[in-house]
């Protein structure tokens, strides 16, 4: 029985190894989409690419999509931190430790909250031997990001030190207007 269990375990490990980075044909350079190597850049949106190699086409698509969206989520935290820092400095609270905590809370909350409207706008599926290599490009509208940040900042403001709670969100609102104009 133990031998059988060991055998099953070894086979499972071998399968995952082959599937995830063992002996698999490498992608040909001409097969890699241009947008994967150089994701588009825009003033009003973030683009991130992801890829995955799997034996199933559906799994390759799911994994590539998930990695592209994950890259977006990680970019968001950085973007929101910068946006909040600017905003706090303009409010005259930039160096305050509570202000830094406030910034960090908002950034983390926004980055870990739901991605609304994060779409996979481009996708390519290549065959590499018996495997499928999926490439996905995710797009996230910055208008949604600023709106999410503003909502979260308003929520967090209630928890923030009351003496400093007279924050005005005009700067963030101006950011939204700016992005709306770019989008039009």
């Amino acid at each position, binding site marked *: 029985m133990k031998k059988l269990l060991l055998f099953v375990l070894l086979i499972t490990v071998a399968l995952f190894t082959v599937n995830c980075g063992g002996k698999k044909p490498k992608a040909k350079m001409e097969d890699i989409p241009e947008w994967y190597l150089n994701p588009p850049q825009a003033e009003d949106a973030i683009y991130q690419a992801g890829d995955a190699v*799997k034996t199933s086409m559906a799994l390759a698509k*799911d994994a590539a999509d998930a990695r592209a969206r994950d890259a977006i989520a990680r970019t968001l935290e950085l973007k929101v931190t910068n946006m909040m820092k600017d905003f706090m400095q303009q409010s005259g609270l930039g160096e305050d430790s509570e202000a830094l905590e406030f910034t960090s809370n908002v950034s983390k909350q926004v980055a870990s909250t739901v991605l609304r409207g994060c779409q*996979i706008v481009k996708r390519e599926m290549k065959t590499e031997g018996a495997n499928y290599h999926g490439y996905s490009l995710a797009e996230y509208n910055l208008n949604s990001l600023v709106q999410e940040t503003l909502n979260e900042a308003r929520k967090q403001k209630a928890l923030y030190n009351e003496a400093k709670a007279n924050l005005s969100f005009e700067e963030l609102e101006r950011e939204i207007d700016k992005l709306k104009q770019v989008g039009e």
Partner: protein
Amino acid sequence: MINLTSAQEFTPSWFEQLPEIPGARLAVGYSGKYVNYNQAKAAALELARKNMTKQISVRLVFDLEELSDGRLCLLNPSFKEFISGGILQTVANNSVVIDSAITEDDYFVLLAYPAGEYQLIPGAGDKTWGIRPDWIENLPNDKGYVFGVGMVARYRSWIRAWYDADEYARFDLGKNLQIKAESVQASRRDNRTTIESVILKQTYDLTLKDVTIVARWFDIENNAYYSLSRAPRQ
């Protein structure tokens, strides 16, 4: 009723591209080889009713976890779907088959809801698959709608393949609407190597309305099936 020749080489045009009839919802159903046509039709009709019910309202729960450390990776997606028995019953009582197609191996029905007198679709005869549609690579850019794409390949059963492609298209649309994404990354470095570990988790639980499978495409050369879902943006 159209009599086509063989499975998946020819299909009714409404299976590839769903038409629009004002005031009616349309959904397709399909089945494989049965002892007789009545059984095949019953199976296709049952699927069409379920598809119609999902079109009206469906709750989708998606969960994906990926653990990888550079050498091994585990991907565990989970798809759960809930439909209302009440809506299914309403659809069964108040819908009508407006067209059907038969080959030696398959049976297709086009269901309309609510029941009524609808004009037959002109030019809905047998057709081979058209050229590879652009929506497989590039999500349609229509601000009034949200889209999702489902794709599967190398299935032995074409019925299972279309069923899964349709389901994946619905779940994909949900991901494009909203999804919770969390991940933890860590790097470990020794003298020789750097190992990047990632734990990724993405989830959503949404009730979607008006999600229609509007287009399908079969890649004969690579035995791959593609479905496109669409819902009005709210």
